[in-house]
């Protein structure tokens, strides 16, 4: 029974009658003359709703064209999922006054709504991105048989989050199924009322707009940093690093509240970018800055590593358990408990660290240091810096890879992985200087090799860790023999994955080292350097 709605807003130039204090519906009825056989009648009694729009921190639903809203009124609460044209895709009644947010999608009741959003939201939690109270009154447009052909709702919305503000009254015209053409006539009449204009955005976008925000905005997107070839390198680097600091700080509250695992993941990405930028390009910053902050960011990286490693284990646990052949899934339960307990302990340390004065001082000092660099006019241009560093990183990655033979130890592949990461960071960091198509292709080819190296190294680390965890669990005398045997099977599975990745390595590296891929990277290195 999906139907598309047409939305209107009352613009700033509101009709004179409204300025005199008349009700919006009265003005519409008086001004939107429905010629011929159509007429207006009162609709359902006025209702008040509490509305919360939900999305992941990185706007996954919004970017997929979905809007998820929790509506609570006198009759209880429900979730409403709509598509790009406002069409209703699914609804879900909620018990009580609704779900306490933030929450993972898996916490929602099973049903079509959850099935639609689960693949989009993935492991990210849903949290309110805006809240408002809506007072809705309704008119019905009737045909000659006094049959309702469309409903016109007037929504007076008071936004309460992310800030308090009143939105312009919003008119939503909803056709009754099978009466689209008559609804078009009604729509034209409503659009003809002085001061009424077709709305270009959704109610969520309107709610955010009055608070000065925009849906889909992500803090610290490096690609969004504006770079131009002649820009001084130090200034460009400061802009890139400030964007990363924005991203880092934006992910701190979600990490401290432990909303979902990806806040920490994204925080770590910002830290890794910062560390790599300082290592690879820090020499262009004024003297002393790189030297002062590199150890600080190493501390921050080390602070976050244990929790993230355990997160990865727990996220992959079900897939790991599904791969068991000899042991039962239940045999791994003590292992899972142990991982969860360890994760809780590590998370406490991480949370303390992120709330510490050392962390607060680090981010404040770092922001001040970067602000000081932004006026720099001296030194090489960003294009020269990008060309030189990309070319060096490309050479290093190629050489490190070419030295790897069948007899090389796992550490040699790990070294190559690190070189590839550095190259990738540089290509992405200076991305705005390059042709998007060339960059996309270069990143794709590099990523194919990185995925293989990642699979190899992750399996290596997890095998080592599972051995260490087994020893610790044995020392704690908490582990049954069945669990150790099941963990052994998991370790064997990891070894299998590692061998498969190693077998794939030669062909992946050959593709990366091939003339087409290398020429593409070299062209990025040359771009703008002249």
């Amino acid at each position: 029974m999906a139907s598309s709605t047409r939305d209107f807003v009352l613009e700033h130039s509101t009709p004179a009658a409204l300025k005199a204090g008349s009700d919006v519906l009265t003005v519409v009825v008086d001004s939107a003359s429905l010629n011929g056989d159509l007429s207006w009648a009162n609709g359902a009694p006025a209702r008040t709703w509490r509305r919360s729009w939900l999305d992941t921190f990185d706007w996954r639903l919004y970017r997929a064209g979905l809007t998820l809203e929790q509506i609570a009124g006198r009759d209880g609460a429900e979730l409403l999922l709509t598509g790009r044209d406002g069409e209703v895709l699914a609804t879900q009644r909620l018990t009580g006054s609704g779900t306490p947010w933030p929450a993972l999608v898996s916490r929602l009741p099973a049903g079509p709504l959850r099935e639609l959003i689960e693949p989009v939201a993935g492991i990210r939690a849903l949290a309110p991105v805006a809240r408002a109270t809506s007072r809705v009154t309704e008119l019905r447009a009737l045909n000659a048989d006094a049959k309702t052909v469309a409903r016109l709702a007037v929504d007076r919305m008071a936004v309460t989050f992310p800030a308090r503000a009143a939105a312009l009254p919003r008119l939503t015209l909803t056709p009754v199924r099978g009466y689209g053409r008559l609804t078009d006539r009604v729509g034209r009449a409503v659009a003809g009322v002085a001061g009424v204009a077709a709305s270009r955005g959704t109610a969520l976008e309107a709610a955010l707009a009055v608070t000065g925000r925009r849906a889909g905005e992500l803090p610290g997107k490096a690609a969004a940093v504006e770079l131009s070839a002649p820009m001084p390198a130090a200034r460009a680097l400061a802009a890139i690093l400030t964007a990363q600091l924005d991203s880092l700080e934006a992910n701190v509250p979600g990490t401290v509240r432990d909303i979902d695992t990806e806040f920490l993941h994204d925080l770590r990405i910002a830290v890794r970018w910062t560390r790599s930028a300082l290592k690879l390009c820090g020499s262009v910053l004024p003297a002393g800055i790189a030297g002062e902050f590199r150890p600080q960011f190493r501390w921050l990286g080390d602070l976050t590593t244990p929790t993230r490693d355990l997160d990865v284990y727990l996220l992959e646990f079900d897939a790991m358990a599904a791969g068991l052949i000899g042991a039962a899934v239940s045999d791994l339960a003590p292992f899972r408990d142990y991982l969860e307990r360890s994760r809780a302990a590590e998370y406490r340390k991480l949370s303390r660290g992120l709330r510490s004065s050392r962390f607060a001082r680090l981010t404040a000092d770092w922001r001040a240091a970067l602000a000081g660099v932004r006026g720099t006019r001296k030194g090489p241009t960003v294009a020269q810096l990008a060309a030189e560093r990309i070319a060096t990183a490309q050479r290093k990655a190629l050489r490190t890879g070419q030295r790897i033979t069948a007899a090389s130890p796992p550490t040699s592949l790990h070294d190559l992985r690190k070189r590839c990461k550095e190259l990738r960071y540089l290509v992405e960091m200076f991305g705005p200087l390059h042709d998007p198509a060339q960059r996309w292709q270069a990143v794709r080819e590099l990523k194919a090799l990185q995925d293989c190296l990642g699979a190899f190294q992750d399996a290596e680390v997890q095998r080592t860790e599972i051995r260490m965890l087994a020893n610790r669990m044995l020392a704690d005398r908490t582990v049954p023999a069945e669990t150790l045997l099941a963990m052994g099977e998991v370790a064997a599975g990891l070894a299998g994955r590692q061998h498969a990745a190693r077998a794939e390595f030669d062909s992946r590296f050959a593709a990366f080292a091939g003339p087409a891929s290398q020429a593409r990277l070299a062209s990025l290195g040359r771009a703008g350097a002249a």
Partner: protein
Amino acid sequence: MRIFATYNIKGGVGKTAAAVNLSHLAARDGHRVLLWDLDPQGAASFLFRIKPRVKGGGKALIRGTRSVGAAIKGTDYDGLDLLPADFTYRNLDLLLDSAKRPERRLASLLTPLKAEYDVIFLDCPPSISLLSESVLHAAGLLLVPLIPTTLSVRTLDQLTEFVAGFAGHRPDVLAFFSMIDRRKRLHTSIAAELPVARSDFASTAIGALSVIEQMSVHRAPVTAFAPRSVAARQYGELWQEASARAGLTG
């Protein structure tokens, strides 16, 4: 998706009144409901203020040149849609006769609506024909309104026997007394005895009440314009029995 059909070989026994009120109650319970007005007289369409007209007529629907979904109209009630009647439905028998497996045709037309509706009501014209046979094959529960006379009980037995002869899917049958005149001793005695003696009778009976006749004045279900009336209460109890029998509620 549960399919209910209000059916009786005789006319004027309360089929349309039952279909209109029960479909309204089903929607009020939160189900997504479609009522197909199969009667060319279009009484159910009239009661919902919807023109009894389908583009291309019954021919387009039966032959599949127009999708059933495209012909559906929304009623004034949340969750309740109507597939209107059309005067060409008087020829549905002939159209079905030229279709492949005519007795299964209605069921196959309804299959694409499974994702969209939880409940479908078929309001059938009074006859025994290829159309009624197709309705009997599509329906999960036949709701048979009967005026309490010996003759109408005999008709029910003939219907039950006919359905029992179907190969494969057989609809469940639930008869109920309709248009009971409390002043007539025969009505009250039959209506009191049969539901106790037979499991295919609902214990709820619908009275011969003037508020039901007023539906054509209000052009709305009794359950909407007179929700506290005796008739609305009776339809409410009948819906409880029918929905439980069809497995919609406990």
